[in-house]
């Protein structure tokens, strides 16, 4: 079973990377760009039949390692 996880900075947290990327895109002439925020993406394959169980495991991975819950939020999607 395959899942995708996206990890993004919480709303009010500074995103230095996004800021620099945004400026660069604007300088490259992408003037209708309104905002860009950068995050992390994971593609995870797990050996598990039951979707609920699988999701729970993925959730655990996010909590324990993939996301830094103090400054980041995450989302899990089945692929």
């Amino acid at each position, binding site marked *: 079973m395959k899942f995708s996880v996206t990890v993004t900075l919480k709303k009010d947290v500074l995103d*230095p*990377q996004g800021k*620099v*990327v945004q400026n*660069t895109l604007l*300088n490259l002439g992408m003037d209708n760009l309104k905002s860009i925020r950068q995050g992390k993406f994971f593609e995870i394959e797990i050996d598990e039949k039951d979707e609920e169980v699988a999701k729970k495991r993925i959730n655990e991975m996010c909590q324990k390692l993939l996301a830094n819950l103090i400054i980041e939020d995450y989302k899990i999607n089945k692929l």
Partner: protein
Amino acid sequence: MKSSVIVFPGSNCDRDIAVALEKMQFKNQMVWHKETTLPKSDLIVIPGGFSYGDYLRSGAIAGKSLIIEEVIKAANSGCFILGICNGFQILTETGLLKGTLLRNKNLKFINRDVNIKVINNSSKFTSKYKLGQVLKINIAHNEGNYFTDDKHLKELKRENLIAFKYCDEKGKISEDSNPNGAIENIAGILNAKKNILGMMPHPERMIDKLVSNTDGLNLFSSLLN
């Protein structure tokens, strides 16, 4: 010899390389990245550091700057280009050198003196070194894990374009002497025309016995020949 050092926001080895070039009697100029013309130079150096914080990918954003177009033009007309550390990363992002630099295999920043072996001493950058000579040079990077595809790797070997490889004190090249996971221990490469050198180790840090050693000097004096 006239040299130019390109300064990006976030470059931080720009002063260091300028000191090295001046010590070797280059007539050096610093060029701010927003400039649109390059002073006439025989050598252009893209220094180490964290251009644009290395945000997105190291070297990616600097690779899109105005001055880089000029650097590409100069390269194509035969000017010598040296990219050190972040400069190497920028050169791969612009396509002037092939391949790319991935995260170090231990996912940590590494600052250490490592040994590298001179694999090619027939280029304009390396002619003062002996073939197979072992140098001790400082590395300082997060992304120095050189990677390229098979086709290019074969070309590098066939055309003698690998300038330096990581090795041990005695010159042995092995997994143990590979600090960052680079493919075949590659520490620096040349382009096909051999007028561009990209390398992760910092020769400009090795020009003074008091601070380190003088193993980097010959790289600059080779260019003077």
